[in-house]
C-alpha cells in the first residue's frame, strides 16, 4: 500500500512550498524537502526486499474502459532510478536554496520542481504502459515550466517551447507505439507486456511499434538527430539543468529503453537502430562539446554524448552491455550533477559562464575547483573513479559485439574516439576554468560559494570516489536487482573491480587518455577548422521551420475558408453533387416499381407557378422587393402543396414561418443598399447556374427515385406507437414533444441562444438609414395609418384565441406549441407594425428575454421531472381526466413541454423582430415630430 505514497508524497509536496512566502527561504526549502525525504525513506525501506529479488506491485482501477490502471511497481530498475531521482532531487533542493536570487520566486520554483519529480517517479514506477505515458507527458509539461522558469528571458521561453515541442511530439509517437503494443498483447499491463516478447516480435506491427516507441525515447534522451533541444534547455536555472540533465528528464528515454528491453530488444532491428543511433550521438555530441565556449553548453553536449553511450550499450546484443549501461546511468548522474552544480557556482560567483573569460579560479575557489576536477576526471574515465569502471565495461562490450560483420572493428574504434573526445573536453573544462593566470575583468570578484551550496557536490563527488574504489561493495546489489528487471535474468558473472589485468580495454582507455590530452593541446587547430562552417543555431532553424509550417497552414486555411458564403456553399454543393450523383449512377433506372399518382390540371398549374416563382426569385434578385414577393409566392405554393397532399399541420407551420420570414427580411432590407450592384462576372454566373442546375437535377432525381420505390420508413413505428406511447393522436406533435423530445429541447435552446445573441449584437447599433426609397421618393410622413392600427388591434384577441386553440388541441389534432407560438408572435408583431415600438412597449409590460429563457427552463424541467419518478429523461406521462363542463380530456406532461416550446418561440421571435425594429432612431421625419424638425 505504500507504493502509491512514493508518488503521492512528492505530488502533495508540490503544494507545500506555496504555503510559505518567498521571504522565508529556509523554511521554504526545509518544508519542501520533507515529503520527498519521507518518500525516499519508504523507498529505502523497500530496498532490501527488492535487492533480494522481490518485485512489489500495487494496482487500482482508474479508467478500465481504456485499460488504464493506477498500477505501480517497484523492481530493481525502479529502485535504481528512484534513488537517483529522490536522492539527487533532495540535493538539488538544498543547492537551489542558495542558488536562487532574492527576486526569484522560490515557492514557484520548488512547486515546479516537485511536480517534475512526481512525474519522473511516476514514469519509473508505472506498471501500466498508458500510465507510463501519462507521466511521460507530465515530465514534458513540468520540464517546460522549469526550463521557462525565468520567463522574462526570451531565450528561456523559446528554449522551453522547443523542448516541449520536441519531447511532446516524441511522447505522442510513443503513445501510438504503446497502443500498438497494447493491441498486440491485448493488455497494457507492464508485466504481461514484458513477458510477451515472442508474441510482440512475431507480429507485423512490431516494426511500427518499435519505431514509434524509439522515437519517444530518442527525443526525450536527446539522441541524434533530436539532440538539438537539449543545449537550448540550458536557459533554465542551473539547479534545473543539474536535475533534468543528470538524473531525470533525459534519463527517462534510456529508462524506457531499459524498461521495455525484455519485450522489444533482441531483434536485428533493435540492435542496429539503437546501437548506431547511440554511437553516432556519442561522437557527434562529444565533438561539439569540445567546441562550445559556454560552460553549460559543454556540459549539455557532453550529456548528449554520454546518453548516446548508454543508448549504444542498451542496443548491443549482450547482457553485460545492459549492465554496463545501467551502471553508467548511476555514474553519469553523480558526476554530471556535480559538474552542473560547479558551473552554477562559477556562474553565481563570477557572473559569467564563458570559458574564454574564465581562468585561474582555483585560487579563489579551491574547494569547487577540486570537486569539479574530480567529477570531470570521472567523466573523462580516469582510473580510481566510477566513470573509469563503466567506460572500461563499455569498451569491453564494443569489442565483443558482432555488429556490422566484417566491419566489426569499427565499433570499438569509434567508441575509443568518443572516449578520446570526452577526455579532451573534460580537460579543457577544468584546465581553462580553474588553471592558468588569474582572470581579469570578471563581472564579479570570484570567491567561494557558501558551504551548503558546495555540500551537494561534496556528497556526489564522494560517491564518485567510493563507487570508483569499491564498486562491488556499494552498487553490486542495486545493479544486480536492476539487471534482473531489465534482462529478466540474473546478472551475468561480472567482476566489478578496478583492475582486470593488462588487456585490450585497458589499452583503449590509455589511448583515450593520451589521445584526449593530445587533442586538447592542438585544440586551436580544431577551432580554426570549425570556423569555416557556418554557425547554425538550432533554435533559429526550429523556429523558422515552425513559422513556415504556420504560414503554410494559414495559407491553406485562407484558401479553403476565405469568409465567403458563396465559397462554402460551392464546396458543400460540389461535395453533395459528387457523393449523391455517384450513388445515382449505380441505379438501373430512375423510376421504381411504384405507380405514380395521377396528375390533374390543379397540380400542373401549382407546379408551374412554383417553378416560375422560384426562377423569378433567382433572376430578379437584384430587385430585392420583387424577388421577396416571388419568394412569398413560392412559400404559399409550398403550403398549398402540403395541404393538397394531406399534411395540414405542415401547411399551417409553413404559412406561419412564411409570414415571419417576410417580416424579418423586410426589416433587414431597410438597412441594405437600395440598389444591388452587379457583382458576378459572366464566368461566375455560368459556373453557378451549372452548379445549381446540376444540384437541382440530382436532388430531384433522388427524390423521384425514392418516391417511386416501395420502402419501409420509420413512420410506421410512430404511427403505431403515438397513441399508446405518447398519448396523442397527432403523430407529428407526438414526435416533436415525445419521441424526439430531446431534439426539440436542443432546438429551442439553440433558438433561445440565437435570439439572445442577436439581441446582444443589435444593442446600441446605429446604422445608416436611407431618406428616400429606391426611386428617390421621400418616405411618407404618416407613421401609423389609422386603418391599419384599427384592424390589427381588433385582430389581436382573435389571433390569441386561435393560438390558444391550436396549442391546446395540438397533441391530438394539427397544431402544437410551435405553430401557436408563431401565431402569437405574428399577432404581436402586427401590433408593433401598426402602432410602433413605443406604443407597444408601453402596453406589453414584459421583457422577451425572460420569456424565452423561461420556455427553455420549463421544457428542461419537464424532462428532468421524469427523473423524480425514476424514468429516463423526457419520459412523458399522460392520462384521461374528466373536467366539469369541459368533459373528457387527455392531459400529458408533453403538454407542459409544449408550453416551453411555445414560450421560447414567442420570446425568441419577438426578441429578434422587435429589437431589429428598435434600431431606427427616433429622429426620422414623421407627422408627430414635424414641429420639432421644421
Amino acid at each position: 500500500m505504500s507504493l502509491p505514497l512514493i508518488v503521492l508524497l512528492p505530488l502533495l509536496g508540490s503544494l507545500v512550498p506555496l504555503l510559505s512566502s518567498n521571504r522565508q527561504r529556509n523554511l521554504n526549502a526545509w518544508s519542501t524537502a520533507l515529503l520527498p525525504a519521507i518518500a525516499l525513506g519508504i523507498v529505502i525501506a523497500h530496498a532490501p526486499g527488492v535487492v533480494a529479488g522481490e518485485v512489489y506491485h500495487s494496482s487500482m482501477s482508474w479508467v478500465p474502459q481504456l485499460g488504464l490502471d493506477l498500477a505501480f511497481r517497484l523492481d530493481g530498475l525502479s529502485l535504481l532510478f528512484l534513488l537517483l531521482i529522490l536522492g539527487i532531487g533532495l540535493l538539488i533542493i538544498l543547492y537551489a536554496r542558495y542558488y536562487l536570487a532574492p527576486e526569484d520566486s522560490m515557492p514557484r520554483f520548488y512547486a515546479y520542481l516537485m511536480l517534475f519529480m512526481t512525474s519522473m517517479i511516476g514514469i519509473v514506477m508505472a506498471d501500466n504502459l498508458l500510465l507510463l505515458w501519462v507521466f511521460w507527458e507530465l515530465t514534458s509539461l513540468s520540464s517546460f515550466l522549469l526550463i521557462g522558469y525565468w520567463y522574462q528571458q526570451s531565450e528561456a521561453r523559446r528554449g522551453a517551447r522547443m523542448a516541449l515541442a520536441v519531447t511532446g511530439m516524441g511522447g505522442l509517437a510513443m503513445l501510438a507505439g504503446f497502443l500498438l503494443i497494447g493491441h498486440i498483447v491485448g493488455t497494457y499491463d507492464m508485466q504481461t507486456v514484458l513477458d510477451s516478447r515472442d508474441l510482440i516480435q512475431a507480429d507485423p506491427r512490431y516494426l511500427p511499434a518499435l519505431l514509434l516507441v524509439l522515437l519517444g525515447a530518442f527525443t526525450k534522451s536527446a539522441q541524434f538527430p533530436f539532440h538539438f533541444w537539449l543545449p537550448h534547455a540550458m536557459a533554465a536555472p542551473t539547479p534545473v539543468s543539474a536535475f533534468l540533465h543528470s538524473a531525470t528528464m533525459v534519463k527517462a528515454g534510456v529508462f524506457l529503453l531499459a524498461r521495455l528491453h525484455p519485450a522489444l530488444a533482441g531483434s536485428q532491428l533493435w540492435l542496429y537502430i539503437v546501437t548506431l543511433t547511440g554511437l553516432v550521438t556519442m561522437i557527434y555530441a562529444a565533438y561539439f562539446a569540445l567546441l562550445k565556449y559556454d560552460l553549460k553548453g559543454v556540459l549539455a553536449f557532453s550529456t548528449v554524448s554520454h546518453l548516446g553511450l548508454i543508448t549504444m550499450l542498451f542496443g548491443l546484443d549482450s547482457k553485460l552491455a545492459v549492465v554496463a549501461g545501467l551502471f553508467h546511468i548511476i555514474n553519469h548522474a553523480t558526476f554530471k550533477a556535480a559538474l552542473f552544480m560547479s558551473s552554477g557556482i562559477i556562474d553565481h560567483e563570477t557572473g559569467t559562464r564563458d570559458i574564454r573569460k574564465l581562468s585561474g579560479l582555483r585560487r579563489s575557489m579551491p574547494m569547487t575547483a577540486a570537486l569539479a576536477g574530480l567529477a570531470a576526471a570521472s567523466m573523462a574515465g580516469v582510473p580510481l573513479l566510477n566513470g573509469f569502471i563503466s567506460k572500461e565495461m563499455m569498451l569491453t562490450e564494443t569489442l565483443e559485439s558482432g555488429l556490422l560483420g566484417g566491419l566489426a572493428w569499427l565499433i570499438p574504434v569509434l567508441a575509443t574516439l568518443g572516449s578520446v573526445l570526452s577526455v579532451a573536453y573534460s580537460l579543457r573544462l577544468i584546465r581553462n576554468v580553474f588553471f592558468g593566470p588569474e582572470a581579469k575583468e570578471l563581472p564579479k570578484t570570484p570567491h567561494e560559494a557558501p558551504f551548503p551550496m558546495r555540500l551537494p557536490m561534496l556528497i556526489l563527488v564522494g560517491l564518485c570516489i567510493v563507487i570508483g574504489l569499491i564498486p562491488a561493495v556499494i552498487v553490486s546489489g542495486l545493479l544486480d536487482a536492476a539487471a534482473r528487471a531489465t534482462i529478466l535474468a540474473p546478472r551475468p558473472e561480472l567482476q566489478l573491480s578496478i583492475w582486470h589485468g593488462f588487456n585490450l580495454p585497458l589499452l583503449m582507455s590509455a589511448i583515450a587518455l593520451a589521445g584526449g590530452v593530445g587533442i586538447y593541446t592542438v585544440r586551436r587547430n580544431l577551432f580554426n577548422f570549425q570556423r569555416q562552417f557556418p554557425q547554425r543555431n538550432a533554435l533559429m532553424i526550429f523556429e523558422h521551420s515552425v513559422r513556415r509550417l504556420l504560414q503554410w497552414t494559414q495559407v491553406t486555411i485562407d484558401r479553403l475558408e476565405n469568409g465567403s458564403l458563396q465559397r462554402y456553399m460551392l464546396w458543400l454543393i460540389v461535395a453533395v453533387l459528387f457523393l449523391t450523383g455517384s450513388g445515382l449512377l449505380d441505379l438501373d433506372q430512375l423510376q421504381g416499381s411504384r405507380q405514380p399518382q395521377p396528375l390533374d390540371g390543379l397540380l400542373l398549374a401549382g407546379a408551374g407557378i412554383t417553378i416560375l416563382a422560384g426562377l423569378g426569385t433567382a433572376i430578379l434578385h437584384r430587385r430585392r422587393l420583387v424577388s421577396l414577393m416571388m419568394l412569398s409566392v413560392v412559400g404559399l405554393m409550398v403550403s398549398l402543396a402540403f395541404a393538397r397532399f394531406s399534411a395540414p399541420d405542415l401547411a399551417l407551420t409553413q404559412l406561419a414561418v412564411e409570414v415571419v420570414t417576410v417580416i424579418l427580411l423586410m426589416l433587414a432590407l431597410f438597412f441594405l443598399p437600395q440598389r444591388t450592384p452587379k457583382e458576378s462576372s459572366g464566368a461566375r454566373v455560368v459556373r453557378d447556374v451549372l452548379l445549381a442546375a446540376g444540384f437541382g437535377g440530382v436532388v430531384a432525381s433522388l427524390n423521384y427515385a425514392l418516391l417511386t420505390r416501395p420502402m419501409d420508413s420509420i413512420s410506421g413505428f410512430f404511427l403505431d406507437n403515438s397513441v399508446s406511447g405518447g398519448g396523442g393522436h397527432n403523430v407529428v406533435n407526438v414526435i416533436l414533444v415525445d419521441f424526439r423530445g430531446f431534439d426539440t429541447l436542443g432546438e429551442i435552446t439553440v433558438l433561445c441562444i440565437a435570439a439572445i445573441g442577436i439581441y446582444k449584437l443589435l444593442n446600441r447599433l446605429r446604422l445608416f438609414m436611407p431618406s428616400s426609397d429606391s426611386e428617390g421618393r421621400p418616405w411618407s410622413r404618416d407613421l401609423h395609418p389609422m386603418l391599419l392600427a384599427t384592424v390589427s388591434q381588433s385582430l389581436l384577441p382573435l389571433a390569441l384565441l386561435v393560438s390558444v386553440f391550436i396549442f391546446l388541441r395540438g397533441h391530438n389534432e394539427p397544431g402544437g406549441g410551435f405553430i401557436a407560438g408563431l401565431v402569437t408572435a405574428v399577432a404581436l408583431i402586427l401590433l408593433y407594425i401598426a402602432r410602433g415600438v413605443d406604443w407597444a412597449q408601453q402596453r406589453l409590460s414584459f421583457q422577451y428575454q425572460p420569456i424565452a429563457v423561461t420556455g427553455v427552463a420549463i421544457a428542461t424541467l419537464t424532462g428532468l421531472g421524469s427523473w423524480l419518478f425514476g424514468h429516463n429523461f423526457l419520459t412523458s406521462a399522460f392520462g384521461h381526466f374528466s373536467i366539469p363542463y369541459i368533459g373528457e380530456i387527455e392531459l400529458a406532461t408533453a403538454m407542459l413541454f409544449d408550453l416551453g416550446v411555445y414560450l421560447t418561440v414567442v420570446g425568441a421571435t419577438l426578441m429578434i423582430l422587435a429589437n431589429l425594429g428598435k434600431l431606427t432612431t427616433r429622429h426620422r421625419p414623421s407627422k408627430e415630430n414635424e414641429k420639432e424638425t421644421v
Partner: protein
Amino acid sequence: MIDTALWIALALFCAAIVLNFYRALVGPSLPDRVLAVDTMYMNSIALIVLFGIWVNNKDYFEAALLIAMLGFVSTIAICKYLLRGDIIE
C-alpha cells in the same frame, strides 16, 4: 352534382391564381405586384376550403383560417415598407 360544382370552382380559382401570378411577374409597378400576391393569398383560401369540402376534412378549414388571419400580415409589411421603409418603428 356537388363534385361538378367543386370542379368548376376549383378550375376557376386555379385560373385566377395563374392570372394573379402573371400580374405579380410582369408588374409593372410595385403596388401591382403587392396586390397580385395578396389576391393570390385570398384565392388560395378559396382553393383550400374547396379542397377541404371535396375530401370532407375540416382540418383544411383551419389552414384557410390561418391564411385569412396571417396571410395579409406580409402584405401589410410590404405596404409599410413602401410607405416608410422601416416596418417597425
